[in-house]
């Protein structure tokens, strides 16, 4: 997958202590976040569209997603 860091966007990160593996972020940010075999997010690209990022942050049930 080509690096998307150069695209316009905000940088998204996961607070790993707060994350409990609901997996919602993989649905709100498909192609950006996928889940590992235990259900925890793998951030494939940190640069995310600001509107998508805001929604994903808002919808994370553990409030574990944040913008850098």
């Amino acid at each position, binding site marked *: 997958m080509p690096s998307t860091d150069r695209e316009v966007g905000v940088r998204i990160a996961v607070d*790993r*202590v707060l*994350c409990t593996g609901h997996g919602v972020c993989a649905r709100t940010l498909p192609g950006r976040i996928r889940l590992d075999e*235990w259900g925890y997010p793998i951030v494939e690209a940190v640069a995310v569209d600001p509107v998508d990022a805001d929604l994903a942050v808002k919808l994370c049930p553990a409030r574990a997603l944040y913008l850098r």
Partner: protein
Amino acid sequence: MTIVEELERAGLTGRGGAAFSTAIKVRAAHDNDADLVVNACDGEVGARKDAWVVEHHLAELVEGARLVTSGRRDRVTYAAHRGSRTADLLTRAGLEVLDVPARYVSSEETAILSLLHGGLAKPMTKRLPFVYGGRDSLGKRIAPTVVLNAETVWRVSQVRRNGPDWFRRFGTDTEPGPRLVSVGGAVAHPGIFEVGSGVPIRDLLDAAGGLEPRVPALLVGGLGGVLLTTDEAATTAWSGPGMAAYGGSMGAGVIEALDPTRCPLDVVTDLVTYGAGESAGQCGPCMFGLPAVAESWAELARDPNQQTLDRLQDRLGVIPGRGACHHPDGVTRFVGSALRVLMPHIHEHVAGPCPLGRSRHAVH
């Protein structure tokens, strides 16, 4: 010259493993009026050098802490494992001691900060360095605090007393200064040695009386380090670039020769199982991923096959960089290096029982 300027000229870097510029940390500590924690836990597997510093250079250690906190002794806390001789020595010297549980990740920088500020000795997500102050994941305020390794703080006092030029007489231009290494395991005379970056690892092993016969591999950097074959160790320099060639670093300065009486696959099984059990249980990729890695490794040692190998490699590929601290990164790095170094031996296991004729289930 201020101590920050002297440290800058000396080029001192942290001796606890991360090798970050001490001048930058101390400047940030001054700018933010930060408290200091001197980490004397020797938390890495095989590490003994911080205990050595406390035992032999306590006055200079205290002096180094004074320099970092601009003379405010009440701003300094010494972290040591609960019940250790180091904790005892520090307490008897009348110093403020933070009793750290003797668990692997408890002496990680942010775990010490959490404990210091009334929380559990578990790592915190570091959104910004805590020298600026910050909050844990639940929003609790963490006052500006800087954590420095005990050897590092001792070096600070040496830089002040002997000057940056003296410091730079040791090591290389890019990795200056004397540094301690704990050499242990299957060597004739385990001990703590002071060297500069760039010395051959072979010299360090000679200083420790040499390897016992038939040592299968060396563990450099403990559970967060890498395995080297004895041939690699014999031809590699003790330096950042030397170790980087094998995916490692000088880390917290630990070299351990593996027990020649045991199958090295079993030794690795024990280490990775220990590492998995030492997860603080906070971050999913660590608390579930490391036990899965341990299970895959044990399966590979028991019944080597391609499918198990593939699964192990997949797991090693996705775990790093996904914890609040670097514990999952360290353990996966270690297992990856063990795969590389011990692959010939794994192939020998395919043919049948351990060809070294070593006990596969030694009591330890």
